């Protein structure tokens, strides 16, 4: 059982306070959606959870140890992080990009072993990109690239996966595929935090939502508890259509208020 927790986190970016006394946590097997309007601090919170920004106040702990007390490699093995709008700078074959996910598990002068290659290959077939293995990574469509980068993060087999908008730019089929895959990952014990703009997907797949607004937590709980009409109006300034289908509730943003 692993638990990644932020407590009373305050983060400043330049002079702007991006997060103010935010507490949030994720445990093994949980699927948490991090939602909120543009500029609410979702990416900053995710980066802080990954140990990529030094907080002004508060702390991030993995189990009981502060993230800062963990070795870089140890942290890299246990926490996976998928940045938003990832770019791939060189024309490496897709298989090599995915294999990079194994870096935290390799010693300084080790080469990737057959086992590493097998793990990378299974991450690729799980995301339906096995046939892209030899394609130069600079010649991918937006959707293909998003899946390649997610496969890279999965290849690291982290205990906790932090994904920043993994479905941005994907068509509906692949959005559902990625969300189903992440949900499956959570079911097999990985803790998953996803930043999402798509409220319908968030409501449908995430067990728990954390709603950020202007650097603070506006609400936290099950989708039904968080995505109330009043809160959508107050935080997102929208009105949504809701209903239920196949026994689960859905939310569809409908008009501005």
């Amino acid at each position, binding site marked *: 059982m692993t638990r990644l927790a932020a407590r009373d986190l305050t983060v400043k970016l330049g002079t702007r306070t991006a997060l103010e006394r935010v507490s949030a946590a994720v445990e093994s097997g949980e699927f948490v959606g991090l939602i909120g309007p543009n500029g609410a601090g979702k990416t900053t919170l995710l980066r802080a959870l990954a140990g990529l920004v030094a907080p002004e106040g508060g702390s991030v702990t993995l189990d009981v140890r502060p993230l800062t007390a963990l070795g870089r490699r140890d942290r*890299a093995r246990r926490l996976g992080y998928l940045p938003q709008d990832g770019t791939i*700078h*060189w024309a490496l074959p897709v298989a090599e990009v995915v294999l*990079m996910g194994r*870096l935290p598990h390799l010693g300084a002068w080790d080469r990737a072993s057959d086992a590493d290659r097998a793990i990378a290959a299974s991450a690729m077939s799980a995301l339906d990109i096995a046939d892209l293995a030899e394609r130069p990574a600079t010649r991918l469509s937006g959707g293909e690239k998003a899946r390649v980068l997610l496969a890279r993060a999965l290849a690291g087999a982290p205990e906790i996966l932090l994904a920043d908008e993994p479905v941005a730019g994907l068509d509906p089929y692949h959005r559902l595929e990625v969300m189903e895959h992440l949900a499956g990952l959570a079911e097999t014990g990985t803790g998953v935090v996803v930043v999402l703009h798509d409220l319908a997907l968030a409501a449908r797949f995430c067990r728990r939502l954390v709603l950020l607004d202007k650097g603070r937590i506006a609400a936290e709980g099950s989708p039904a508890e968080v995505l109330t009409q009043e809160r959508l109006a107050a935080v997102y300034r929208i009105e949504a259509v809701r209903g239920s289908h196949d026994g689960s509730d859905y939310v569809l943003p409908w008009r501005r208020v």
Partner: protein
Amino acid sequence: MSRGLFALLLVLLVAGFLASLALGPVAIDIRAALGAIFGDGPEALRLIILEIRLPRTILALAIGAALGIAGAALQGYLRNPLAEPGVVGVSAAGALGAVVVFYFGLVRVFPYALPLGGLLGAGIGVWLVYALAGRGGSTATLILAGVAVNALAGALTALALSLAPSPYATLEIIHWMLGGLTDRSMTHVWLALPFILAGAVLLATLARGLDALTLGEDAAQSMGVSLAGLRLRLVLGTALAVGASTAVAGVIGFVGLVVPHLLRGRVGYRPGALLVASALGGATLTLLADLAARLIVTDREINLGVLTALIGAPFFLALVLQARRSEP
């Protein structure tokens, strides 16, 4: 890097090394040349080999390797195929460091002041380029940073030139600006080689980090790469390798641009694998270019730096056009 490519580069390098010993105004049999290194053969032959061709050959090899690996490292770190010690001004800054040391007569006080001056100049140069164009900046930013650093170093070198106290001093300063290996002795080899070696080894340790940087700074950091450590090793390694090179040979541009470009596809586009390959390729290319500089015109020599610029500049132009097409 695959074994085949490594073997091929090594064979080319050895061939270039032997050709550089054997060819020149006087052609010398390779076996006789090798014998002379170990003290065999007539006095005149040993003099030519040990005093003239061997130091020149060793320097061409070491400096070419330094420029090749520094070019590959800069490109990997800045994630831009146009980064190169000459283009971004690191070489010019290194040459300026050496010129300053020379101008104030520090060499007479302490011979190692020369490579140290080059090292300091090159170090400041890399740091400026990083400050102006780091963090995966666009090609335009990188080129502008290079223009700025080159202009600054060039202006200060020209100032030293215009204030030069004697025609001899003028000639020496021009040598650094044009770049070349004429009249270099074993003293120069001992001055430069330890620094170049240390720098190249330091740059070779960047491989893993540069691979990870392919996915951007956040992803690299999340995979356990220390960005601060990587940057420090890059700046130090480049300063050591390029600074010591320019201190003895002046500005030899474009080697670090052309070589990684030619080899990138052959190492599967991995920036880490490109490092050692570019060191080998850079050494070979510089040996061959120096040989050409010696042999093309018979009564006078072309400066090596001039020759590499003549070949490299059109190559650079083509790359800029290519980059402009791929950037929206």
